[in-house]
Structure formats: C-alpha cells, structure tokens
C-alpha cells in the first residue's frame, strides 16, 4: 500500500496571532511552526500501517523553502520520502490542485490529510482533492483499518459517530482519534539523522489559480472585564444570565 500524508506548516497551538502590513498578512515573526496537529495524527496512523502492514509512506506539502524544517520533522518521525511543491499555499483550492496532481502521478492508494489546518481553518483540501480525483472520501475520520483493497473507517458526526465501509483508493480527512495523543512520536536522534539522508523532492507547481483571497484580517474585539459573582450568592449569576446576557 502506498500512502501519501499531506502536511500543512502551521503556527504552534500556543502562538499569539498578530497581523501586519495593514492587517493584510499574518505576522510570522517569533512564530514557531509545526506540523498541523490534524495532519500529525494522520502521519502517526500512517506509521502504524508502515510498521504493521508494510506500507510505504510519503509526505507532501505545498510551501516555500522555509517550510522544510517541518517536512524534515515528518521524515524524522518515519516517513520514507517527501515532496515539496515549491509555491506559497495561497488558498485551499490551489493547494488541493497541487496535491491532487501529486496523488495522480504517484498512484497513491491512500491519501491522509487533516480535517482542517489550524491556521486558515479552510477544511476543504481533502474534499476538493477527492472531487478532482473522483476518489472515495471520509472526513473527520477517527478510526481507519485497511484490509487488502477494503477499508473500514469511523467518522465523527454531530452527537456521535458513524462506521462506514469503503475501498481504496481513498482520501481521509483525519483528526485526533486516528491515533491517541499519547501515540504521537517525538523524533529521536536516530530519526533526525536518518531524515537528513531521505529524499525531499522539490517540484514546481502545476498551473492553477486560487478561488479565494484573504483581503484583510481582524483581531477579536478586546474582552471587557469579567463580572465576578460571589460564591455565596450564586442566585445573582442566574439573574445576570437571564436579565443581562439573556441566554437563559
């Protein structure tokens, strides 16, 4: 089985978000970039397929040269080979077009992407890829088993979960649950050394235009002071929620 894991290079979850150039750009100064958490759960599940079922695991990312440390981290975790599409990831449609081209040329059986990136929160890349390639697609996937050409997946739905059966070739929009938090791997020294020897192929983007453009960013309005209610006067909270906030 040939697996492609799609990786997005995103600000670490603890990052404070600021904008620059007249609020038209995300301010990357002082930001630590990491593998998008939803992608990392997928990558870790892919390592399981590699170790238990002999799968080959490649990772792909659309980004400029500055994203290579994140890609190297995926190699250090255990991916066999990496592909970087040398272009700024302008929007979800553009990225999906680039990745779809890699999937087609590489004839991958299973493509695992995160359900969404934690920066722009588009949540559309795996779905657009599935439509462009006419492949089966399971989103918000929290469990995945592959047996030959058949796959069984569990996806999270509002208020529960749904078990589905499908077949390869398949695209997954993954998230926590594909593996547990405790299964995530911190690359060890051997992995980091080996990653340096692994192939990181840089390819030119295919001709595609973005379907959206972020014209401006805003930060949330600053929060007013919290209104404290005495622990011995809980009734006042009920009062405030009813009369002032009007939420009960």
């Amino acid at each position, binding site marked *: 089985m040939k697996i492609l894991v799609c990786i997005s290079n995103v600000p670490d979850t603890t990052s404070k978000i600021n904008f620059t150039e007249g609020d038209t750009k995300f301010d990357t100064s002082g930001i630590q970039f990491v593998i998008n958490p939803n992608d990392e759960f997928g990558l870790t599940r892919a390592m399981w397929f590699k170790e238990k079922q002999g799968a080959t695991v490649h990772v792909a990312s659309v980004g400029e040269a500055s994203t290579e440390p994140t890609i190297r981290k995926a190699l250090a975790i255990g991916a066999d080979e990496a592909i970087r599409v040398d272009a700024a990831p302008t929007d979800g449609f553009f990225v999906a077009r680039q990745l779809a081209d890699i999937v087609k040329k590489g004839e991958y059986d299973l493509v695992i992407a995160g359900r969404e990136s934690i920066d722009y929160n588009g949540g559309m890349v795996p779905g657009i890829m599935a439509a462009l390639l006419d492949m089966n697609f399971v989103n918000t996937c929290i469990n995945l088993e592959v047996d030959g050409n058949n796959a069984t997946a569990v996806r999270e739905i509002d208020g529960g979960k749904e078990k589905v059966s499908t077949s390869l070739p398949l695209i997954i929009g993954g998230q926590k649950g594909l593996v547990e938090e405790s299964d995530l791997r911190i690359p060890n020294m051997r992995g980091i050394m080996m990653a340096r020897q692994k192939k990181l192929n840089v390819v030119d983007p295919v001709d595609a235009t973005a379907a959206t*453009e972020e014209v401006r960013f805003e930060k949330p309005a600053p929060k007013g002071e919290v209104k404290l209610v005495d622990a011995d006067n809980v009734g006042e909270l009920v009062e405030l929620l009813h009369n002032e906030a009007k939420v009960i």
Partner: protein
Amino acid sequence: MSILVYTESEQGKFKKHALEAASYAYAVAQQLGTTVTAISFNNEENDVLGTYGVSKVLKVSDDNLKTFNAKAYAQAVSQAASKEDSRVIVLSSSTDSKYMAGLLAGMLKASYAPNVVATPESTDPIVVKRTAFSNKGFALTKLEADTSIIGVSNNAFGLKENPTDATVEVFNPELKDGAFGVKSVEVDKVVGKATIADAEIVVSAGRGMKGPENWGMIEELADVLGAATACSKPVSDLGWRPHGEHVGQTGKPVASNLYIAIGISGAIQHLAGVSASKTKVVINNDPEAPFFKAADYGIVGDAFEVVPKLIEKLKEFKAQNA
C-alpha cells in the same frame, strides 16, 4: 439565479442550523436582489422553510439518501445549483455540511468560505467575514470563482422569520456511478440529548473535577439547562470522558450562546476553541486561572460547592419561569 441553500434534516425534521442557513440565505438574497431556493432530502415538512424566507423548495425523496452520504448529496446539490443557475450556495457548519462542502467546491470549481459570521460586506465581488486561526482572528475572504459556497458559522446569524409562500417541487437528481463508494454501516448517536454542535448552551468541565466519578453534577447542570456536556483536552486524554466531548483547538469547536466552564483553567488552545461562544461563564477556585480574562461572568470558588447551588437556583428559576 436564485440563492441555493442546503437544508439539512434529521429524522424527517429540519435541523435548527438548516433554518439558520435559510435565514442567512434570505438576507444575502435581499442584498443581491434575488430569491432563495432550498434543497431538502426526505423531508415532508417543507412549508416550514417558507417561514425563513425560502420561495421554492427542491424536494428530493429517495430511499437511498435516507442516511447522509456526502458524495451523493454533493452531486444532488451541484445538479440543483446548475438547474437553478445558482451562483451562491449557503450551508451550515454542521459536520455533515462541512464534509459535503469540500466535495461540492471541487465539483463546481467554486470558492468556499467556511465559518462565516456575517452577511457579505460587499457583493461584487462577494467578501465575507469568517473566523480563522482557530477563533484567534477573523479573515475577510474574497470569493473569486463563478460559484461561491458560504458556510454559516453555527449561531452566528440566528433564526430570522421572513414569511414567504414556498412552492415545493419534486427534484430527482441523477446520481452517478461511485456516488455510494462510502457506505454507512452503523450510526452510533445519542438521541434526545443536545449535541455540542447544535446546543445553545454547553456545560464543560476540566481537571478541576478531580475524577470521572464526579461528573454527575455536571450532567445534572446540563440537564437543567437543556445543555450539551463537553470537556477539556486533559480530561479526554485521561479517558475520564469520551473524545467526542473534547472541545478546543484540536477538538470540537463551540459556538454556543452560553458556555459554562467548570474547573477549566483556560489554556490558549482551549480558549481558541470556545471563544466563538457569545457568553462565557467560568467557575474556578483559582482566581489567577487565565479563563477569568476571557469570560463574561465568573465565580471564584470550589466547583463542588458552587455547582450544586447553581443547580438548585436554576431549578427555582425554571419553576418560576415555566
């Protein structure tokens, strides 16, 4: 060209967020000087949509579509869009709608903006405001393709009545080969209880509860309020509560009207996931807990004393206002 809205049903009834999407679609239609067409699946109560401004309903009745199937539904919506020459498609932010939206964007080569919180600030081209950076910011997104898909953030617009006579028309989409490449085997879902996605009130608790055996009072509080229960990441990682309850940056997003956080300190990742909620209440014995800076109302105190009192006061309130 009317605006097309996908109105999601559950057990034959429209979901609240479907009616919210219809309300939003009507507002956009007013801006663009057009009307709203809805597409519904296996729903016999289509007149309800007229209340929220829908002029025409394309009614799909097909036993194969009783259970949601993202690809088959996306094909149907895409065909409805071309039949109606719709250049704007509106849907909600439910898990199923988001699942379908990506496929639809790929099929129609459309611009898609998810988590939209307001009606377009301009219409030519369409520019919408949406949450980004996991609620740490907003993006003003220009939709540049011929067709635009707008995903309305839950509870962002609300239900707005605009009584309209809705005509209902039977619509039979032609589902292509491979539409059912993913088959539903089993749905495991809580029925009759509010879900985090749909609930107007969410009661959430963290490690301050000391152990899973203490969740009785959290569930009781949620029951009194008709709320969904949620939890912080450490709590789901420890296995005290199911993963489906984990809210925050890597868990489920919350956009309820009222969010009550009990024994949750308020790590930046947690706050990001819940900050779209309109009113936030924190109950924590540590006055330095970061959540107090993000909350509207707070009680510094021991949850084990405060929560039972709150339940009691709410019961009194409900009895008086019943």
